[in-house]
Structures are given as C-alpha cells and as structure tokens.
C-alpha cells in the first residue's frame, strides 16, 4: 500500500462578506500519496484554489484537519506556518510572480535566502534548479527578457530550489500558449517521475490534467468521489 502523504479530513471553508457567510468547501476528505501527481479540476468558483491554498498553509480551514507528512498544519502559528512553507512547499503560480528587478538566478535564489546555506551552496542549488528546467544559459536574464514559458520555468526552478516535500501549481499553463504549456507540463511530469516530487496542480485544462497520475473534480465546494 502506498504511503499516505497528505490527509485532508472533514475540511470546510467559508468566507465572510460582512454578515454573509459564503461556503466555499464542504466536508472535503482527500488523501494524497507520496510521489503522486494530482490534478484538481473543476469550474470557476468550485473551490479548487481554496483547497490548494489550505494544503499549502497560506489559508486556514474553518473546520477540519490537514496533515502533511504527519504534521497537522492547521493549528500552527503564522510564523511557524511560514517556516513550514519555506521548508516543505514549492509554489508555481499562474502568472509566474517573478520579481522584475531580479535576474533569473536571483529569483530562484529568493527562497534560499531564508535558509542557512552559504552563498556558494545557494549558487550550487540555483544552478542545479535552473539546469533542471533547461535555463542554465539564461541565469542573468531579467523576467522581461524571457518568454512566458521561460518565465514559468524560472518559477518552477524557484519552486524546486529548496528541494521541497511537494509542489503546488495553480493553473501553471493558464497564461501560456499551447507549445509552452506542453513544455511546462513535460517539466512537471519529469519532476514527478524522475525526482519523485509530489505535485498537486489546479487546472482548467483537460490536456494539462492528462499529465497527472490522479484527477479529482471539485464542484460547488464538494469533491466528487470518482477518481480518474
């Protein structure tokens, strides 16, 4: 039996707009195995990004528990959660979210500044990450000197630079053309297969979802039980 890595237990999430409660997630139960590549799909407003944020520890559930590698992250303080994220989570955003004033190298180095690694060790980590994503020759380029696909690859390099336990990708191909989207999905697939990274990806795109080992569908805040 595969090792259970992430356990989402009876999670509910609501937002408040003034006195109006807006339920987003309803009684979510989800187990993700170590080394899995999960695609969370669903229409807009279904709650898939909210679920991703909860698993990432950048939002807190209204009720329920989320265990990651045996650690219940919901009760952690803000500071502890920040430290936990820097140690365990790699983020890939739809719009890359690179800092425009930093080069590709410096962007990838950003999360490593929070570690105790020496400058030389950081350099090694950054160069390795950029080599994996195929941008070793673009280290000194600024984001505006890169194509969208290349920017997303830099973002992926940033996500893996700290060698996190798992990678969360929110619509990683949403802002890319077809060719670039395929390159990004190939890269994520490679990270999953060759490097054993657990990946949770939110996507609208059925083609992108095909790269995942598992697909789960959310609709109106509820997780469908049928696994793809």
């Amino acid at each position, binding site marked *: 039996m595969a090792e259970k890595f992430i356990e989402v237990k009876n999670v509910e999430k609501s937002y408040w707009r003034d006195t109006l409660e807006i339920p987003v997630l309803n009684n979510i139960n989800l187990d993700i195995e170590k080394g899995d590549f999960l695609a969370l799909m669903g229409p807009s407003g279904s709650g898939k990004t*909210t679920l991703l*944020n909860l698993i*990432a520890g950048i939002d807190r559930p209204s009720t329920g528990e989320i265990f990651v590698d045996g650690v219940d992250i919901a009760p952690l303080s*803000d500071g502890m959660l920040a*430290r936990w994220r820097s140690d365990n989570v790699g*983020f890939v955003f739809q719009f890359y979210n690179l800092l425009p*004033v930093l080069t590709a190298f*410096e962007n990838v180095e*950003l999360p490593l500044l929070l570690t105790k690694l020496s400058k030389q060790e950081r350099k090694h980590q950054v160069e390795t990450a950029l080599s994996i994503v195929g941008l070793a020759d673009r280290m000194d380029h600024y984001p505006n000197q890169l194509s969208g696909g290349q920017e997303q690859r830099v973002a992926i390099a940033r996500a893996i630079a700290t060698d996190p336990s798992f990678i969360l990708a929110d619509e990683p191909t949403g802002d890319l053309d077809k060719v670039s989207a395929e390159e990004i999905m190939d890269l994520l697939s490679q990270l999953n297969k060759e490097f054993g990274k657990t990946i949770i990806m*939110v996507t609208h795109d059925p083609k992108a979802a095909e790269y995942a080992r598992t697909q789960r569908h959310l609709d109106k805040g509820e997780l469908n039980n049928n696994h793809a």
Partner: protein
Amino acid sequence: MKFLKLTWKNSFRHKLRTFLTILGLAIAVMAYSVIRTSVDAWYAGASASSPNRLVTINNVSLIFTIPMAYKEKIEKVDGITGITWAQWFGGVYVDPKNFFAQFAVDPVTYFDLYPEYIVPEEQFQDFLSQRNSVIVGRKLADRFNWSVGDPVRLIGTIFPGDWDFVIAGIYTGTKEITDESQWFMHFAYLDERMKVEAPPRAGQIGSFITRIDDPNRAVEISNNIDAMFENSIAETKTDTEEAFQLSFVAMAGSIVAGLKAVSVLVIGIILLVLANTMAMTARERTSEYAMMKSLGFRTAHIAGLIFGESLFIAAMGGLMGILITLPIVNLVRVGLSDFFPVFKLDPITVMLGFSAAIIVGFLAAIFPAIKAVNTSIIDGLRIID
C-alpha cells in the same frame, strides 16, 4: 545582509520616482539647514557674547542716549572691574545700501573689554595716536577692499556732515563666531565735533559696557547700577551682554519664529512626499509581498524590506541635501553678509538635517509596512477562486 541587494534593486525600480523623491528630500534637508543656519545667524551676537560683560543703556530705548557723567558712578559699583562705552554712529559709505555697524568707542578701554578683537600692536598704536583713525574688521575691509592707510569718508546721518577717516588697523576675531564686520572710531573725535556743532549732544553715549568679576552676580550688579539712576532724567537698563543681544533678536521675533515654523513645515511636507512614495511602492508590490510570504518570508522580512528601502532613500536624500547645503550656505553668506556678519553652517545643523531625513524615512515606512504585513497572502495574490 542577504536582502541588501533586493533593497537596493527595489529602491531603483522606478528610477525617476526614486530620483525625484531623493531630490525632494535633498532640497528639504538643504532648506531646513539653511533656515536653521539663518536662525543661528540671528543669535550669533548672543552666542559670541561674554558672561562677564554687562551693557547699560537708556531705560526708554536704545536710541536714547545716557550721559557720559554716569561713568564715574557706574565704575564704583561693587563687582565691576572695567568700564567702556560706545555710541552708534550710523554713517553712510558712498551709498546707503553699504550698511555696516559703526561704533564710536574709547580706544583703550574698549579693546581691553573686548579681547576677542585682535589688532596688530603697531596698527593699534597708530589708532591710538590719530583721532580720525579707525579699526575695521577683516570681513568689512575685504568687502570694500580697504587696506591700512586708506582714507574713507562717511556721510553722517545721526551726526550730520562729512566725516573723514583713515584706516589705522584691521582686527580679526579669536573665534569663528566673532563679528569681523564692525567699524570702531574714536569717541573723542565725534564728541569734540559735537561740542562745536551741537553742544547738547556732546557728552552723550549710547551704552556703557562693564566687565564684572563674577558672572553669578550679574543680576545683582545690574540692579545696583540701575538703582543709582532711578527717577533721573535718563534712567538706565542694565543686562548681561547676552540678554542685550537677544533683545535685538526679540525685535525680529516674529521673523525668527516664522523661520523656525517653516523649517518644521519643510520636514513635514517631505514626510508626506516620502510617505506617498512608499505607500505607492508597497501598494504596487502587494502581490510580490504575498508571493514572498507564500515562500516563507515572515513579517519581519517584509517590514524590513519596506523600512530598508525607505531609510535608504531617506539617507540618500539626506546626504545629497548636506552636499548641496554647503555651497548654498556659502552663497547665502556672501549675499547676506550685510545683514548676517556670522553665517556659518553648524555641524549640529548638519546632523539634525540628516537625522530629520532618517526619521522621515522611518515614519514614512510605518503605514505601508503595516498594510503589507497585514494583507493576507490570499488577498495579496488575489487568487480566491
């Protein structure tokens, strides 16, 4: 240290905006420093005064005289170790705009009571030997290109007529704040002519200056002097030299108060400018801060980046302000030398100007930092599904 590069790069993300903000800060620091130096210049006379000297004038006003005959009584007051006197001359050199302070004094006793005026011995002996000779300050001599031996004619206003003088000597000050723009002539030269041309004005002087043995007794001695002339035709008012000088500042009290208010206002305005810059900066980077927080950057990191950038810009503005203050103060000193004999940039003013910039940098970052720190990652990324 690891984040300095990011702070540096962030500071110059909008080069024009940053440059204009730094320039604004620099101009504000310069304006603050020049205004404060101007205020110091008003007080220069008081700063240069001696605690051992008292000044006695007519109780009604400085423009009224007191009889020379008072000297005999005043010098006998207990605690007084020296006495001299001076009379404002008020002549015009070529053109009324060539204003400078002219005093008719008793040569020996006056320079004895003012040891801060240094006159070469040979020149001083020449001054003593010639009634129509004068001693002038180095700055005054430089201003009109006067040299020892030059004849100078003044046109009297308070004491009408043409008055011919010869420059006998040039004095320098022992301190930087000593006024080197004054003119000292023989009182006897003035008084003898008054005896002939306007006898009622002879034997009248503007002020007695006395040296006392103990500054702590200044009030007591002042009271004793004034008590002797109560109910006389010319009651006196005696103060320490510092209080006497400050009374001149008080005459322009509103101007000085206005200058002080403007200096504070300048700092307030630039605080708003920098605060606006930092608020715009933080607002533009909301999603970046959210991204950084999602990577594990904590409150202190985000606040540190904002404070670092604000303080860096403020420090740059402060330094640039100091650099442009130096030549500006020199220009003002030359331009206003008629009004401010001493116009010197005090190191304390430089420190205050730079400190004000740093404080502004700190204050300007507070609200943007609070907002950035309190914005949730979700709101920052705007990724609520």
